[in-house]
C-alpha cells in the first residue's frame, strides 16, 4: 500500500494491525450499495432467516417455500436479512482552535490519527469512506466511496488540511445532515467549543436523517486543568479578542464554566443518542479507537 509513497505520519501500522482485529460496526442499520457486513434495513439474500411472508402475486416463484406449502397448503415466501456495506463520513473540525496542543501533539494531529485509522479500517472491511473538513464552512469535502484509490485521496486531504479561521460547526453540521445520504455512520472530530444548546439541533437533525453519529471531543490537558502560574495573555486562535488574566484569580471560574459546559454537553449527547467520546490528548489514540470499536460491537445495529 505504501510501496511507492512516503509513509503517512498519522498512520501507525502496528496500531492498525491490532485494531483490525475488531470490526467497525454500526449501531443501526446502514444503507450501503453493495453487500457488506452491516445490517441493512431491507430484506436480502443473506443466509440469515428473517421471516415468512404470504405470497402476493408478483413475488418471485423461486422464493416460495414449498415445504411450508406442503404442510399448510398456503403459499409462503421465505425472507432473509440483507447485509450491506456502510458509508463512513468523517467530519473533521479544522478551525483555528484545533491547532492547540501542549503535550507535543496538537488536536488536529491527533484527529488525523483517528481519522486515518478509522478510514483505513472501514476501507479494509469494504465500507465507503468520505471526509469533510469544516471550519467556518465546509473547507474540503470528499463523498464516501470505496476503493484504495479513494482512500489515498482521503489520506491526501487529511495530510494537507491545516487548521485556520473560526468554527462554524453548527451550520456546517446542518448542511452535512442534509447533503449526506440517509443512514450513514458520521464521525465528528472536534473540540466542540460551541454552546451545547446550539449543538443539540444539529445532532437531532442528523438523528432524524437516521445517521449513526459518533463524536470525539478532543481536549488538551492544559485546557482541562488550567494550571498556569503567571499572569497570561490568551490570544484567541480563532481571531477573537485577546484576554489578559491572572490564572490564580480566574482559575475557579474557568473550572466552573468548563464544568457547566461539560454537564450540558453530556445532557445533549445523551438526549441525541450520540456515541460520545471525550478524549484528552495525552491518551493513546489506539486505546481511544479500541474503546470506540469495542463499544460499538456491543451495541451492534439491530434491524
Amino acid at each position, binding site marked *: 500500500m505504501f510501496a511507492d509513497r512516503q509513509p503517512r505520519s498519522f498512520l501507525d501500522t502496528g496500531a492498525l494491525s491490532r485494531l483490525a482485529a475488531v470490526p467497525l460496526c454500526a449501531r443501526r442499520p446502514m444503507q450501503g450499495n453493495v453487500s457488506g457486513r452491516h445490517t441493512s434495513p431491507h430484506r436480502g439474500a443473506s443466509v440469515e432467516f428473517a421471516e415468512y411472508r404470504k405470497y402476493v402475486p408478483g413475488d418471485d416463484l423461486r422464493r416460495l417455500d414449498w415445504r411450508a406449502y406442503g404442510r399448510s397448503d398456503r403459499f409462503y415466501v421465505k425472507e432473509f436479512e440483507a447485509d450491506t456495506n456502510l458509508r463512513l463520513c468523517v467530519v473533521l473540525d479544522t478551525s483555528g482552535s484545533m491547532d492547540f496542543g501542549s503535550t507535543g501533539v496538537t488536536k488536529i494531529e491527533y484527529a488525523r490519527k483517528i481519522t486515518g485509522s478509522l478510514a483505513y479500517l472501514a476501507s479494509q472491511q469494504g465500507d465507503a469512506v468520505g471526509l469533510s473538513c469544516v471550519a467556518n464552512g465546509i473547507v474540503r469535502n470528499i463523498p464516501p466511496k470505496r476503493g484504495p484509490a479513494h482512500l489515498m485521496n482521503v489520506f491526501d486531504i487529511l495530510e494537507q488540511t491545516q487548521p485556520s479561521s473560526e468554527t462554524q460547526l453548527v451550520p456546517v453540521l446542518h448542511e452535512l445532515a442534509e447533503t449526506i445520504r440517509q443512514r450513514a455512520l458520521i464521525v465528528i472530530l472536534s473540540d466542540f467549543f460551541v454552546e451545547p444548546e446550539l449543538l443539540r439541533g444539529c445532532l437531532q437533525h442528523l438523528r432524524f436523517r437516521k445517521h449513526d453519529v459518533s463524536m470525539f471531543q478532543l481536549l488538551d490537558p492544559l485546557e482541562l486543568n488550567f494550571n498556569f502560574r*503567571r499572569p497570561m495573555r490568551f490570544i484567541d486562535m480563532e481571531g477573537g479578542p485577546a484576554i489578559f488574566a491572572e490564572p490564580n484569580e480566574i482559575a475557579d471560574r474557568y473550572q466552573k464554566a468548563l464544568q457547566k459546559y461539560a454537564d450540558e454537553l453530556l445532557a445533549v449527547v445523551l438526549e441525541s443518542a450520540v456515541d460520545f467520546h471525550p478524549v484528552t490528548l495525552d491518551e493513546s489514540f489506539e486505546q481511544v479507537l479500541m474503546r470506540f470499536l469495542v463499544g460499538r460491537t456491543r451495541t451492534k445495529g439491530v434491524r
Partner: protein
Amino acid sequence: MSFLQPLLLAALPLIALPILIHLINQRRFQTIRWGAMMFLLAANRMSRGYAKLRQWLILLFRTLAIAGLIFGVARPLASGWLGLTAGGRPDTTIILLDRSPSMRQQGEGQAGTKLDTGRHQLARSLSLLGSAKWVLIESTTNTPREIESPDVLMNLPATEPASSSADLPAMLQAARDYIQANKSGRTEVWICSDIRANDWNAESGRWATLRDAFLELTQGVRFHLLAYPQAAAGNMSLRVTNVRRQQGSDGAELLVSLKLTREGVADDAEKVSVPVSFEIEGARSEASVEMTGSQFELKDHRIPIERQKDRGWGKVSIPADANSADNDFYFVFDQPAVRQTIIVADDANAARPLQLSAAISPDPALKLAAEVLTVDQLPTVEWDQVSLVLWQAPLPDGPAADVIQTFVDRGGQIVFFPTQAVTSTSFAGASWQSWVETPDGIAIETWRGDQDLLAHTQSGAALPVGQLQVRKHCGLSGEHIPLATLKGGTPLLARVTTNRGGVYFCATTPAMADSSLAENGVVLYVLVQRALALGAAVLGNTRQLVSGDVSGEQPTAWQQVAGPPEALSTEFAFHGGVYSAGERLLALNRGSAEDQAAVLADGRVAELFQGLDFARVDDKAGNLAALIQEIWRLFLVAMIIALIVEAALCLPKKVSQVVSA
C-alpha cells in the same frame, strides 16, 4: 504610640513592596495562543467578588506583615506619653523631682507613695528611653546634679521625701540655666510632681519669664509632666500653733496649742475621735480630741514638765493616714528671752509713748525692756540681744546705717518715725519727704487686716485703726508696700521689702501734736508688740524654722535630736525634726502652705506651658503598671498571623477534574 528607634520608620514605604511586586508580576505576563476562549469569556462574565477580594486580602496581609516587621524593629512603646520620642534618643534628660511633703501621700488602698511611684515610673520609663546624659534637679536644693542612670533615682538619698516645699519655677529656672550653661543638645525635661498650688506658685511672674527663656533656646526642649493630682480624702494634718512654758506654784507646765485639719470633708461631717500623742523629750502622753468639721483647734493643752526644765523639745503626732508627712509636728520651748527694744528718738514726747508700748509686757511670763538712746550711743548697744528698734530721728547714715542694716539682715525689726527736720537721707531705698499738716486730723482710709503688723486679732476682730486721727504726717518716697493709707492715698504705715528682718516706716509720730497714736494706744501697742515678737523670734536659744528656709543658720553644724533617722546630715535643713546647734535647739517643720491641699487645675498647668512642647500624663500613687512598655512582640505576633493568613489564602484550591477522558 511612640518608638525607640523612630528612624527605622523611614523604611515604612517598604510596605508597598508586595503591591510593587504584584504590579511587576502583572507586567511579566506570558502570551499563549489559546483555543478554549469560550470558558475564559464565561469566567470573565461570572461574578469576581470573592476571587478579587482574596487577591486584595493577600496583598493586604503581605503589606501588614511587612508593616508589622518594620514597626516591630522600630521598638514601639505603649504609653500615654504622647509624642514621646520624636527624634530618637535625647542628648540630655533633666528630671525635676518634687520631694515636698505632699508627695508622701499614698494612693487609696495602695502601699506606695506618690514620690515612690513617680521615682519608680521614671526609673523604668527613662531607662527604656535612654539618653546621653542624665541630670537630676530635686526640689530641696534646686541644684542640677548629673546622675549615672535613671535607676539611681530609686536609691539616691536626694530623691527621698523631704519636709520642705518645692519651688517649681526655681527648679525650671535651674534647668534652664543648666541647658544654657552646658549647651546641651535636644533636651527632655521630665517633671514629677503632685502639682500642688503652693509648690507651683502659678501666679508668680517668673513663669512668663521662664516660658520666654525656654522659647529662646534653639535646641528642642520637650517637657513631660508625670502628675499625681489625686487628693487624699480624709487626710488629717497637724500643726502646732503655739507652745508656752508656764511656771506655776506647784510646778511647770507646757501649754501647747495645735490645729487639726481634715482634707476633703464638709464642716458638718460626722464626729471622729483623733488620738493626739505628745512627746516631750521622750516622755509620751496622749489626748483624744473629738473633731466634727474640717478643722479643729486645741488651745493650751497642758502638759506638766519638770520644774527645773527650762528648755527642751517636743513632738505632737496623730495616727498614720493617707499622708504620713503631715502627721508629726516638732516644737522647742525655752524660757522666753528678754525682748529688748532700742528707741532712738529726738522728740521726748514721741519717745515716751513708744517706750511705754515697748516696755509693758502683754504676758507676765515675758520680760520686756526698752531703752531710749541717741544716735551717738548706738555703738554701745549689744545688738545680739535687741529685738526691735524704734527710730524717731533722721534716717541713719554712715556707720549707723551699717549697724542698722546688719541688725535687719540678722532678722531684727525696725520702725522709722519721721522727725521735724527732714533730711534727704534714705534707708533701704525709702526716704522722708516734707511734712503735711492737717489740724483737723485725717482718718485712716484703708489698712491691711489680713497680715503684718495691723492684722486682725486671733479672734478675727479688726484693730481700731480707723479711729486714729493724724494731724501731721510726713511724705514717704521710694519703693514700699503700704500697710495703712490715709485719705488721699498717702501711706501712714509702709513696709520696705527686705531679705530678712522688717523695715517699717510710720509717717507720723505718737506725739500728741502729730497723731492720736498715743491717745488711742491700742494700735501703737499692738504694732510695737507684734514687731517686737517678730524680732524676738530670731533670738533666744530656741527657734521654730520652716524646712528649707533656714537662713541665718548653719545646718552643716547641726546635730539631730529628734526626727527621721534616715535623714542625712547634709539634708537636715530639709527634714522635719529637732536639731541642736551648739546650745540652741531648733525645730524644723513643713511650711504651713503644705497643709493646703489645693491642686492646680489642668487648664492652668497647660497655660503655664503654653507655647512649649509639653505632654502630661496623670498617674496614681501605688500604680504598678509601667507607664511605657515595649510592645514589639505584639507586632511580631501580628506579622506572623498576617503571614499565616496570607499563606492560607494563597493555598491553591483543589482542582476538580472537570472532564474525564
